[in-house]
């Protein structure tokens, strides 16, 4: 499970383990976006689209984007996923809508870096704003992909790939899927 489990004491008869409490992650803003996802549905006049898939948990989202003059005029998302993925997708649409494509791409990179622990959002400069509510996923290795999937999918859509998966070889978060 990686570094999310931090061993505090180790004694032959007693082992104590501490871990980041995921309740920090399930904040009201995330729960709200999960209940009422914004920009939900499919854009009929989309210029770019992609589907994202996370085989580990079955998360599956469809992203449709309308670009004009390299500006994200409209962006919709639809699919079936866990709360972390759905809220991440919903908040992503609200943040990138109306922004230049280059800003969206920069956010993709910054979000990935924050979720994987490469970007310390409290010390380093970034443009993530309230998206930092997802910073807690970096302590939950199995959930990082859930948060990143919409951003992967946005990157794929903007770069004319029809589909993406969290298991893609190029995926910096690539990790083997647990078997049975």
């Amino acid at each position, binding site marked *: 499970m990686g570094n999310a489990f931090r061993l505090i004491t180790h004694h032959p008869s007693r082992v104590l383990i501490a871990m980041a409490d995921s*309740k920090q992650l399930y904040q009201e803003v995330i729960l709200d976006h999960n209940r009422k996802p914004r920009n939900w549905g499919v854009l009929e006049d989309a210029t770019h689209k992609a589907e994202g898939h996370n085989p580990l948990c079955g998360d599956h989202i469809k992203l449709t984007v309308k670009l004009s003059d390299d500006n994200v005029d409209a962006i919709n998302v639809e699919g079936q996923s866990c709360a972390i993925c759905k809220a991440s997708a919903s908040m992503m649409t609200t943040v990138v809508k109306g922004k230049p494509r280059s800003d969206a791409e920069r956010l993709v990179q910054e979000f990935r870096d924050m979720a994987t622990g490469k970007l310390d959002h409290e010390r380093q400069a970034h443009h993530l704003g309230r998206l930092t509510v997802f910073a807690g996923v970096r302590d939950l290795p199995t959930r990082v992909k859930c948060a990143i999937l919409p951003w992967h999918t946005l990157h794929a859509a903007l770069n004319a790939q029809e589909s993406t998966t969290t298991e893609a070889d190029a995926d910096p978060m690539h990790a083997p899927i647990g078997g049975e």
Partner: protein
Amino acid sequence: MKMTVPHSATKAPRHVGLDVERLRDDFPILRLRVNGKPLVFLDSAASSQMPQPVLDRWIRYQTTQHANIHRAVHYLSETATAEYEGARRKLQAFINAGDESEVIFTSGTTDAINLVAHGYGRKFIGAGDEIVLTTLEHHANIVPWQMVAEEKGARIRVAPVNDRGELLMEEYLKLLGPRTRLVSVTHVSNALGTVNPLREMIAAAHEKGIPVLVDGAQAVPHMKVDVQALDCDFYTFSGHKMFGPTGIGVLYGKAAWLEKMQPFKGGGDMILSVTFEKTVYNTIPFKFEAGTPPIAAAVTLGAAVDYLAGIDIADIQSHDTDILDYATREMNQIPGLRIIGTAEKKAGVISFTIDGVHPHDVGTLLNDEGVAVRTGHHCAQPVMQRFGVPATSRASFAFYNTLAEVDALVVGIRKVQKVFG
């Protein structure tokens, strides 16, 4: 080991047959605390835990008995060989195989099925032939056959299940035809817990001369398996789901089939003689055990068999029934919770969904309470598709689980529902 809730505090009756608290003392890992809470380990269907005597066996083998087997004449090599072959005989007795040569050590169930797919499938299955599976299969009992089917131009036929997750016998019988070359079926569904009516299924296949492979990975921790009484042609299982280590498993095969099958892997130990012109394969089981096997794991699996022999299987089964009945009753009282898989005969597993909450979120929030469940498609996507869900949460039980742990699960689920409002 002190549980979260003592037995006296639960609504459930006490157990009489199995002294669970005493048995729990054998499992050091069950003393862990996770997130400040006692670990409630409800994921034994994915991998079970190992008791101290079994752990000790690994250390004893490695510290006093280890060398490579079937090779040198020195003391350690002879000792290691004797212990390895002794473990084979323990596994033979465990499943009541007719002969020790019918017990092949593999790396696990997946490896065992792949061995048969290669050794039997690629030799005896041809274009237009059919392989019969069921909706309940784990990916490990689907993908190897798809690979054979693709290579040979054969066809996969799938026997469906009803809404409770029980095999539709009449549909299964219809699939057995003149082109059927193999039935490959799970004993117990890993995703739903359904116990398949194997004897009836095997007898029907044999009437038409069709051999049957059984994926027994989920069965061996819960019930007495007798391969001769079942009359199956192949039976496969994994060590780590029966309180042994990972990296070791067993393929049982009837000698008549094993003799006819081609080897899966080539290498040392699986040969009688090698020249560059011709190689003569070793006899069974060695023909299928190329290279140095996981000796310590095999010996340790033998110790797991010994450990299980010290517990009355009838007690394990009645404990299993008590836990499943209690958990089913308690969970059915939670609004918005749906149990997927309600077969009359089940073992060890409760799969469920909660309205408005994705299983992955359920798993993460239960982990905060120290409760370990599996979430996802359980490597059984056709089962998920059959029941129209992308994934489920799954609580799975072993004899070391208590009714108090079921209570902890139920409390945890109610907390999850509270978070999601």
